[in-house]
């Protein structure tokens, strides 16, 4: 128990420098070359030419990313167990679930749309949250999970396709659209998904991409 605690403290140490010669950092926006200098916690390094953020040193980055992605994953279980909206019309009661929205599109003759909705609201959040936890939690103990590099790659590729917050706005618009034909109200799933959105944003913003990869490289060597 004692040894575990000391390991956690080690992982709270600042952003480690990977072995080898000093690194460069390049602005993804204007391609200006910089010497990658360490920055204090909570400070962002900006491009000298265009002012875009090069990298940021987030405080307690690994702990935050792991904790928030774990919370997001747990809330995702709640999201799939409880309905988002409940509709009462003409003595009929219908529930909306996340998988239900995708399945309805598949069953009602639009399988491509159904798969797209499932991909953007179920698969990408899972890859993003699960991947972040899978990579960051072992790094807290200075270890590298098997296949972590590949998982981190998937994570970065799936990031722009994560549409949790867009779906939430969609639920609100649908609620107003249906309110005139039926009695619709929010259910547990909606609030859980709202939590997923917040936790996911906190987890992704919790650790800088460069820091994550530097830490993975240090853990590997």
């Amino acid at each position: 128990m004692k040894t575990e605690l000391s390991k956690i403290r080690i992982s709270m140490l600042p952003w480690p420098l990977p072995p080898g010669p000093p690194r460069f950092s390049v602005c993804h926006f204007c391609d200006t070359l910089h010497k990658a200098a360490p920055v204090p916690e909570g400070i962002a390094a900006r491009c000298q030419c265009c002012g875009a953020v090069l990298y940021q040193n987030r405080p307690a980055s690994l702990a935050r990313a792991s904790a928030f992605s774990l919370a997001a994953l747990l809330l995702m279980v709640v999201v799939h167990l409880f309905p988002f909206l409940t509709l009462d019309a003409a003595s009929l009661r219908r529930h909306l679930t996340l998988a239900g929205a995708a399945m309805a599109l598949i069953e009602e003759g639009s399988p491509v749309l159904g798969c797209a909705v499932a991909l953007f609201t179920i698969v990408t959040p899972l890859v993003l949250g699960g991947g972040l936890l899978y990579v960051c939690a072992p790094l807290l103990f200075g270890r590298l999970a098997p296949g972590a590099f590949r998982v981190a790659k998937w994570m970065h590729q799936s990031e722009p396709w994560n549409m949790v917050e867009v779906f939430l706005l969609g639920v609100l618009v649908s609620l107003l659209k249906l309110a005139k034909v039926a009695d619709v109200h929010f259910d547990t799933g909606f609030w859980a998904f709202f939590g997923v959105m917040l936790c996911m944003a906190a987890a992704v913003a919790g650790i800088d991409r460069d820091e994550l990869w530097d830490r993975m490289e240090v853990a590997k060597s």
Partner: protein
Amino acid sequence: MTPALSRAAACGLAGCQICGRVSPVALRRCPRCSSRLHLRKPASIERTVALMIAAAVLYIPSHLLPIMTVVELGDVSENTIIAGMITFWKEGAYPIAIVIFSASILIPFLKIVTLSWLCAAATGRVHPSPTVLGRMYWFTELLGRWSMIDIFVVGIVVSLMQLGNYMTITPGPGALAFAGVVVLTMLAAMSFDPRLLWDRLNELSAAPTPNPRNPTA
């Protein structure tokens, strides 16, 4: 006052698109994450233009064809995106009407216009002004996903409104076309390389004034 900042491409260095590590482009693959290294995104302008034309073509049927078909007590009515927006406006639900208008009509249209402008600037047809164009690029990347809202609304409404003989709603062909527009414009924005704008700007600033420190050139 400020010394000329060197650019990575001029030194033969490329930042990895996946992990961010800067390595010589001659290595071809990133030594850290083994993704392919490129100085610039390959065929950036061509890909962006191709995807954008496809999106612009699909934009027309996405608004003309119905996104939902409503069968209410035997009556069949077809809803387009614009008709849905107008209904909200007439009912006085102005914020929702504005959200739908921006997400479904304005953003895809602005994205196509913005990307055309960016491609024109990167190939030298329009003057590239990095502060304005940078904002524009950031805006297209940030707002692109929000257009998907109408597709999610169709999914949610279809899923809830399966009320047997009383009312059923099925997705229409317009929804598929519209999802195509959103995905294609997102892919187009991703394949555009903003560094091309700066390349073009450097060419422009280098061309008229010969470098005094290097008279032989």
